[in-house]
């Protein structure tokens, strides 16, 4: 495989790695290639992880990941920090690309709660940052039906009408569960504004890639 990485400075770090997410995003919007490389370093695990979780197919997740970053390069200038975090914006893009990828085929009836590994015994990446732990706590405190409905909307973009059909519940019930569920996520948020990534990127030191 060709080594096509751009040159780094002597310390092996791109100086973009020290920027906040928003500052890095501004640099990405200028199409500065080094900023884009740094952005990939910072977010690729997040994007690929979400893609794999949603489409559940490694080859497809590959394409989803590539297209998600393509959309970022194309629309970086449209990012509005007042509307949310860079991570959140990126995850929305990833989810939308992933959902588009799934539209040609019916997904298996996977319990979306599994996507968050809420009942896992696995160590490692599942033990995520504080923001994630809060979300998991709220989700496990919800009735399973409510949590599942909420995540069908959040991760697959299913509308209330589609969820009503999938879950065999009335449309009004689906809408209510979505509303109540998301409301609880919001209420549990407090003043937390972290995007779950710790804000500043941490550049890995030469790990053989």
């Amino acid at each position: 495989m060709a080594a096509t990485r751009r040159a780094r400075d002597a310390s092996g770090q791109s100086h973009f790695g020290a920027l906040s997410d928003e500052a890095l995003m501004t640099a990405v919007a200028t199409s500065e290639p080094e900023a884009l490389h740094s952005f990939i370093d910072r977010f690729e695990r997040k994007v690929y992880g979400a893609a794999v979780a949603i489409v559940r197919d490694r080859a497809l997740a590959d394409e989803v990941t590539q297209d998600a970053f393509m959309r970022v390069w194309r629309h970086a200038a449209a990012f509005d920090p007042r509307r949310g975090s860079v991570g959140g914006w990126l995850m929305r893009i990833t989810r939308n690309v992933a959902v588009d990828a799934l539209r040609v085929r019916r997904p298996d009836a996977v319990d979306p709660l599994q996507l968050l590994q809420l009942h896992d015994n696995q160590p490692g990446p599942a033990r995520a940052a504080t923001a994630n732990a809060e979300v998991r706590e709220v989700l496990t405190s919800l009735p399973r039906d409510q949590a599942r409905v909420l995540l069908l909307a959040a991760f697959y973009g299913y509308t209330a009408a589609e969820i009503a059909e999938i879950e065999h519940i009335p449309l009004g019930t689906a809408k209510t569960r979505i509303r109540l569920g998301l409301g609880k996520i919001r209420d549990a948020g407090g003043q937390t504004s972290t995007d779950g990534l710790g804000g500043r990127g941490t550049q890995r030191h030469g790990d053989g890639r």
Partner: protein
Amino acid sequence: MNELTCEEVRERAAELALDALPGDQRAAVLAHLDSCVSCRALVDDLSMAADRLLLALPESDVPPALTAQLHHDVPPAATAEAMPTRRRWAWLGAAAALIAIIVVGVTAIGLPSEDDHPGVGSFALVTPAGATIGDVAIENSDEPWIHVTVDDDIPRLGQCVLVMEDGTRHEIGAWPVDDKYKEWGAPLDQSPERVHRAELIDTTGATIATAMID
């Protein structure tokens, strides 16, 4: 859809924040938010909550080949248009295909004369009623390329289909739901001179407009 009340918008705010609201309702809610600060604040709050849900998805180690590809595909420091060609989705489906081909790579179109290159040129997309709503441009300089442009207010865009002289149909692009790219380009696998026409199909399967390619 008529204008919505604040109560109606509040009922739909969570679905909007989750990007899970059907297109027509979404348009109506967004119209309300344009002029209602309190509903706008509610949606912003819920959007942050929705972001946190997505951010709770687990990270994953990335295959080295994918990482290499991502870095390889970083565009050079030129304009945003100079992006590498994105290969087409391998699994473009037939029915209700709503997957985007977002291929950005169209260079400025300097079209050779049609006499020299049949099938090459710019062709108007015309509705059955005779209105022109966009155009299809085909060029064949470095590689055969098709570029579709559609007016902003065409609803329910579905697919673009090429119909060949022999009657065979090839779907060459599709629009994702709620995504409003009105202009895109793609490599053209078919020979331009064998293309009879391009059709724009909406999400119900009806033909919106046709461009005769000569």
